[in-house]
């Protein structure tokens, strides 16, 4: 602060492109540009945002107060804007035609941004993404980085109809649950990722508060939030406050060791920033995770299943959520099997699994799979109504404190 002047924090410029294709419908393209300026008046923050990234818009935003900050010039801002990759629309039309009953919507999502601070400017790049929604009433969807080699296989699995004869596990069933095919990623995204976000921690709302350094699980897993993994949807090379992307370890050998913070909560939590993410130019940055990566162990997934006498194996999730207030997590199972005497038996009906946050973590078996697998189903993460792309990769884990709802 100088005198009564507000303190200029940053100017954020963003361009977004969304192309949407659905069978029998027009190819819809949407281009949205916007700019936002953040100021600080003592402890109060103010953000003004407007559509467009023209000089006129930026000048209008920077001149809101009698004090107009000088900001560095940004080169390349007048470019032609974002374009979809060549051939994407034809590819998407072909994919849409492969889904039964005109039931799929395929989107290409791309964004570019620049964060301008007094000291300089930082471009923000993220990979182009493909999102497919198939039968949205049942939440069947896919989110992946465009050109990921496995994309074709994931689409085939998304189209695959569910098994006809399924078994509903009885409510209250509490046995070992084997989370395989990357399904442990969304669980740890909820339990560790969200609950290590700086806003929850700074407000005293995370059940992980006070557990820094403590072993949350017997499994000697490392859980790292890594925006540098450009093969996963939550990637970026700098966050939306201009902090260069670095991996942040959250668990080291099962012990809580890190938090995910934007600049403001990093100051409050006395840690480093780097996870200030915006839903778009209209929203201020808030602490959000990027790609949650869990290290693998020494066991094959088959070995882990064969060691279970009676339980469930989950191969695909339809959703996951955590409620910091009740400290409970819910996993919505889309596909899986009953395990009897170490073998996969009847396919599961859709069901929900629930448990307390710290109990679930404490109940993760020390035997960890050697098969870190990308989750392609979830990833479109919504917090406080703000959606963001995230990713996860995790090996097979056995969890003992989950209960069928």
């Amino acid at each position, binding site marked *: 602060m100088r005198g009564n002047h507000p303190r200029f924090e940053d100017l954020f410029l963003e361009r977004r492109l969304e192309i949407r294709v659905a069978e029998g419908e027009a190819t819809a393209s949407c*281009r*949205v540009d916007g700019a936002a300026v953040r100021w600080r008046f003592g402890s109060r*923050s103010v*953000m*003004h*945002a407007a559509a467009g990234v023209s000089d006129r818009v930026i000048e209008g935003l920077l001149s809101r107060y009698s004090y107009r900050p000088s900001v560095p010039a940004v080169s390349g801002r007048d470019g032609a804007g974002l374009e979809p990759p060549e051939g994407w629309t034809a590819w998407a039309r072909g994919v849409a035609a492969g889904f039964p009953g005109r039931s799929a919507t395929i989107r290409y999502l791309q964004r570019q941004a620049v964060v301008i601070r007094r000291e300089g400017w930082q471009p923000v790049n993220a990979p182009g993404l493909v999102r497919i929604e198939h039968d949205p009433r049942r939440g069947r969807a896919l989110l992946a980085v465009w050109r990921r080699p496995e994309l074709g296989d994931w689409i085939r699995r998304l189209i695959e109809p569910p098994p006809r004869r399924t078994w509903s596990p009885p409510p209250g069933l509490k046995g070992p649950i084997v989370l395989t095919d990357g399904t442990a990623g969304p669980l740890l995204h909820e339990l560790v990722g969200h609950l290590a976000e700086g806003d929850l921690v700074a407000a005293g709302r995370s059940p992980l508060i006070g557990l820094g350094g403590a072993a949350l699980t017997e499994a000697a897993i490392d859980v790292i939030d890594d925006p540098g993994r450009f093969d996963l949807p939550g990637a970026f090379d700098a966050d939306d406050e201009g902090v260069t992307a670095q991996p942040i370890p959250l668990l080291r050998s099962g012990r809580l060791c890190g938090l995910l913070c934007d600049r403001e909560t990093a100051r409050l939590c006395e840690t480093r920033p780097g996870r200030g993410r915006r839903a778009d130019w209209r929203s201020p940055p808030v602490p959000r995770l990027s790609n949650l990566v869990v290290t693998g162990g020494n066991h094959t997934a088959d070995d882990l299943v064969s060691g279970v006498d009676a339980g469930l194996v989950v191969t695909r999730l339809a959703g996951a959520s955590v409620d910091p207030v009740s400290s*409970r997590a819910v996993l919505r199972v889309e596909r899986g099997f009953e395990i009897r005497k170490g073998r996969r038996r009847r396919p599961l009906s859709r069901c929900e699994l*629930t448990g307390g946050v710290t109990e679930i973590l404490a109940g993760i078996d020390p035997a960890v799979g050697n098969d870190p697998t990308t989750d392609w189903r979830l990833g479109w993460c919504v917090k406080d109504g703000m959606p963001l792309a995230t990713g996860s990769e995790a090996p097979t884990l056995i969890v003992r404190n989950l209960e069928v709802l």
Partner: protein
Amino acid sequence: MATRPDETHDSRDAAVVVAGSLLADSSARRWEIFAKQSITRQTELVRGKLDRTLEVAECGVGVRTFDGLRAGFASASGFGRPAVERTVRAALAGAVEADDPMPPARLIGSVNVAPGPNMPARGWAQHIGNELELALASLSDGRIGLERLIIQEGRYCWVLATGEGCVIDHQRVAASILVEIRVGERSGLWREWLHVADPETFDPAAAAARVGNRALLTEHDITSDHGLHDLILHPEVSAHLFAGIAPLFLARDEATDPLPRLLDPQGLLAAYAVTVVDDRADASAPVVGPCDGEGLPARRTLLLDEGAPRHRVASFADARRFDETPRGGAVRLSYRDCPTSGFANLMIVTDDGSPATELLAASRRALYLLRPVGPVVCDLEADRYSIIASGVWLKQQRVCGWHPVVELSGGLGAMLRRIEAVGTDLGWYQTAVGFVGAPSLLIRRQPVVG
């Protein structure tokens, strides 16, 4: 300068003129231009102290085209000529072979909507925050702590113009408040979203009662119970339950329609007490406009009539595809979105309802579900529901204990047909299917394991 609706009305209309002239010279036989501008102000108070202010000005254009064979859609932010030209070009370039998705000119029209209130004066948000804090303190003798208030005020205007010369122009003010309170340490944070139909008549004491009364019930000792209980759903739980069954009210393909399997032999989905509408003509509801998202006059569509399914909501294209009468069931959330079938204000009718206190008194042994603590899941194909909620046990009309997390599941259709009475305490909630207005519901004899 930053965009402000009153200053850029001319730019909005100029953008429509530019788009119209480009389209008139194009291959498009029919077209529709939607231009919208809005300004929203969000004030956030943390423990009574002004913490953050956001002010967002947005504008943009969306264009639909049909050239006799192919339909196109594109949108872009801004009212400048380059943005408009790019939008028109993209709509024409992205067109694919399809039926004409736009309603014929003879169906387009509008109804008179009551003039909206003015945008509250600057400082209203902070004033309301202080008043709410005082009202909550007085309601609870200081036992309720007001953690955070987010007050949103918005002013928007849009114009819908078609190639046949129809023009519908609309402007409106909207306001809402998100309140976060804490009662003691045990029950955590309580969050309530309040729709403010008219900022000038907003009553902080009534709002405080709505926010605080149910949270205060959690001050009782934690107990558990089981067996057959009556269930009383707080409006928030009811809203999420009806959001879960809302897909049943959308027009769809007969082959995949789960509705027939959910009906009882009398053709009822729910009990006689339940009537559901999508009301686009109610000036006090959250989404108000003279027409639906593609220009059909705003109306009230009866979806469930005393438990029996009646009509379904559909955009013009979906109505034609699924052989429904077009009733104006399109929603257009912003200029960025192509109109789709959806709900504006999905509402359980409370005209014949009873005050919530009577519902609470009508049961000798009940579980009163206060709020969901996990997603309310309705599996329409499997005829199952599950609710994870926080509730209190009632015996002889007295609260005898609080259960922080109770899990209920069972047959969906059977549960809907056991709704004996609806309350009059309608509240609006934001859900996955849009705004849902719901009252308290009394459901008889549900098995409960708590």
